[in-house]
């Protein structure tokens, strides 16, 4: 008889043993006085003397295996409170568990970005959403009646004081610098507001992350270095970056930062407007007038600042083409993240 075939048979039959009675039948079949193993043992003398040793060992191993399976089964049947245990489940049925909730995709992106900067040593600071004109504009070197303010259309609050809803997170620069002396490395996430007509790419409320660093000897090259670490961490090591001269009233020199289009890898597509580049943030060296407003000596300190729209980054990252979907909070959308 073929020992391997018997082993397979043992494995198969022990599976259907589910009661004391069927276990006894199993035992008799294999280990009984006239059982299969007894038959095997009795066949040994008929073998060629050279084969006997090896065969005998295999039979012994089989015997041990069957004995231990029986002991094991006895134990499991006993713990089944004496009754025979039926298979009560179909493993093809849905598993039973509490469903996990989820963080809003914007929170996930905010956490990721803040996490990268925190690892580099930046501290996270938040500021109020209701701001003064001074912190939102004047302190940041944005004259009140000037075309440079056109891009910062702003919601004002009814009331005697001219208070507004911050149109960017930059006022937190003023707040932090007025309170603390350099060195500073700070990151500021938060909601900002602009009275823009709502469409696929505009929302009157959105999120920004502002970052700034001030110390002696901070250079534009440092700004490039920090933002490169950030962009590669978010969009991948093989992303290309470029710094394009631009204008912001609160930085000089100022730069807009583009990354090579993550959709077409720079070849040009509808997402990047055939340019091969995607603008992701604005940045620059903090303007000396801003330092003067907060009482820092611009001869002693230099610093850089940057700001980005979180929705924009999230849209690029997840391939979302309509900003409004973030604020609709459709569960079918939220459950994807």
């Amino acid at each position, binding site marked *: 008889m073929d020992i391997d075939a018997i082993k397979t048979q043992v494995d198969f039959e022990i599976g259907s043993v589910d009661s004391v009675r069927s276990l006894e039948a199993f035992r008799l079949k294999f280990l009984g006085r006239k059982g299969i193993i007894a038959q095997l043992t009795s066949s040994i003398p008929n073998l060629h003397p050279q084969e006997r040793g090896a065969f005998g060992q295999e039979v012994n191993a089989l015997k041990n295996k069957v004995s231990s399976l029986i002991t094991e089964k006895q134990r499991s049947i006993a713990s089944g409170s004496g009754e025979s245990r039926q298979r009560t489940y179909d493993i093809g049925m849905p598993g039973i568990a509490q469903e996990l909730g989820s963080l809003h995709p914007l929170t996930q992106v905010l956490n990721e970005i803040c996490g990268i900067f925190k690892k580099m040593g930046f501290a996270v600071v938040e500021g109020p959403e209701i701001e003064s004109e001074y912190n939102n504009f004047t302190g940041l070197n944005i004259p009140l009646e000037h075309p440079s303010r*056109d891009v910062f259309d702003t919601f004002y609050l*009814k009331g005697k004081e001219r208070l507004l809803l911050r149109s960017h997170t930059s006022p937190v620069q003023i707040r932090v610098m007025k309170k603390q002396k350099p*060195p500073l490395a700070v990151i500021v996430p938060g*909601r900002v507001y602009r009275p823009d007509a709502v469409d696929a790419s505009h929302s009157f409320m959105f999120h920004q992350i502002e970052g700034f660093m001030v110390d002696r*000897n901070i250079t*534009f090259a440092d700004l490039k270095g920090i933002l490169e670490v950030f962009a590669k961490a978010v969009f991948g090591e093989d992303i290309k970056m470029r*710094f394009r001269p*631009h204008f912001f009233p609160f930085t000089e020199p100022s730069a807009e930062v583009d990354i090579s289009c993550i959709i077409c890898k720079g070849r040009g597509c509808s997402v990047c407007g055939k340019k091969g580049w995607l603008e992701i943030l604005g940045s620059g060296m903090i303007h000396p007038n801003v330092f003067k407003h907060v009482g820092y000596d611009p001869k002693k300190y230099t610093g850089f600042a940057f700001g980005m729209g979180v929705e924009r980054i999230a849209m690029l990252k997840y391939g979302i083409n309509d900003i409004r979907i973030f604020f609709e909070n459709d569960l079918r959308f939220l459950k994807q993240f």
Partner: protein
Amino acid sequence: MKITYKWLKDFVDIRVSAQRLSEMLTMAGQEVTSLEKRDGDVVFEIEVTSNRPDCLSVLGIAREVAAIMGKKIKFSLQPSALNFQLKADSRKLRADSQKLIIKIENKKDCPLYTGKIIKDLKVGPSPDWLRKRLELVGCRSVNNIVDITNYVLFEYGAPLHAFDRSQLSGGSIIVRRAKNGEKLTTIDEKQRVLNTDNLIIADYDKPVAIAGVMGGRDTEVARGTVEILLEAAIFDPILVRRSRQKLGLQSESSYRFERGIDPQIVEQASLRAVALIEKLAGGRCRVAGALGVAQSKRRTIVLDLSRVNKNLGVNIPASQVKKILHNLGLRVKAGKKNIFSVEPPSYRPDLNLAVDLIEEIARIYGFELIPTTQPAIRPRVSRDNTQELVSLTKRVLVGLGLREVITYSLIDKGLLASFGSDAKGAIEILNPLSSEQEVLRPALIPSLSRCIAYNLNQKQDYVSIFEIANTYSASNSGPKEELVLGIAFSGSKTLLFEQGAIKNEFGLLHLKGIAEVFFNRLGIKDYDFTEQGNPEVIPVYVNKEHLGSMVRLSRTVLNKLDIKNKEIFALEISLSRIFSHANLKKQFAALPKFPGIARDISVTLEQSVSIKQALAQIEEIGKPLLKSARIIDSYKGKQIPCGYKAFTISCEYRSDQRTLTEAEINPAHAAICRELAERFGATIR
């Protein structure tokens, strides 16, 4: 702004392709946003930043191209061939003709006004080359005179205006503020009512143009016009901006006036237009007048080379710095060792500080050549742990199966009204674009409920959401922002077990459960949810402080939200205040050395009896052996008489000194049963 490749070539020798040129411009800060081949030319769309009004012209971009490529610009200042001279040493121009009187009410409103009278011209269509160029840059052709003023505007960046002189009474020009209520019909046939904020051009009798914004209909150059007054001037940018905003009139002219015009280019543009008119419309200019300042103040900026390299983190040699500045049209005088005095031209009023020059050097040198370095960051640890606690809160709630939402902080008063709030005390927005932005929300529940309504509409049968955001309220010390947690859910969830499906209908106890898990995680022990008269609104107390409420929305509110056959349960609590009670410190307590013994009691109580009080009393009575008493089952149904409720309470007895014996537990347990029966009227089953 649109500009064409060939037009640029009029001013600078360009040897590279339009594509390459656009890349060079973009990387030098004049971002070319689109490039389009049309009619044998290439049209560039350039996004000119608000600090560079000098680049709002062909000449301006040509100067940039020249600076980038190190080429010479084909343009030089022309002396006035007319009856006054623009002298280099005199900054003032004066009207010197009796035939053209220019009066300026306030020099601040209008620092420079030049006028030229051109007679015997013939108004007609423009030649093809002129029409085509204008059309390429997006300007409609009107007639030769108007087209020429537009052409020069695009070419030199100085807006011009031509008046039909026969319609100007008294032959003079007065630049003044409008009187309140004064009226002018502009060339778009609209009557504008003016006030003292509007700067206007007037003749003796009436306004004829809104300075820098739009001309009047009655003095417009039309087919029969034979004599014009050509205006080239500078108006106060803020006044132009206000007029433009108030009247809602954006034009190529106002756009440039708001950003500032180079005083030196004004007369040049006027001369260029006169030459073109004489050539194309056959007129003659014999009378000219001007008043005001035709040059900006000269200024010198001191630039320290070491500062350039220190700010940028590069090492650009002095010779290269000098060359870059020179190519940009700046005069550079070397002073002491690597310290330059630099004088910007009149068309660059944006250059005032050393950093302005550093930016110029950097962008022409090339941002891409600046290396990347890693600054040493000296981290500081903040004592404020709000963010950590917010993040912990979110993790707890997500673990409990809730979805985070982000809803608008601005809402409509109508939404508040449907919650029975009259929006009084809510902070109102002065300039909302739509009714959805009327007020800053004083609470999260209205937004969350609307979000639930939206999702129920999408045929979701179970919605459980939360948001952490500010709410806003007016107070004596000004507006206040408070960080708040809002939770809301609706519907039922079917859980499939081996025994079959169980429909879990959600209610206030689920909210309470979530809150308890959250409080426990924050290490808050003293919290309370006691009903105070209204079973639909349960106040939440933490350390005796009222921090929020749990609510079951009324049918009226649900109807207003268009929710049928569903309920909404919501919780709103102040995180700013709860976090001050948080205690995340952990302290190890030794594990019990001796086993505990559980005894269950099944009781039936009258509906009105507080189970919470009963449990509290049991724990009091059972001291010190009783370690905990908790409900492990509750019954409803036929066996329980109407007006009663039934529970099984499990009591755990344990000692830290020894294993308890039956003899020790029995009297304690009996005392508890007695107390339940006597004090709470319980029937022990």
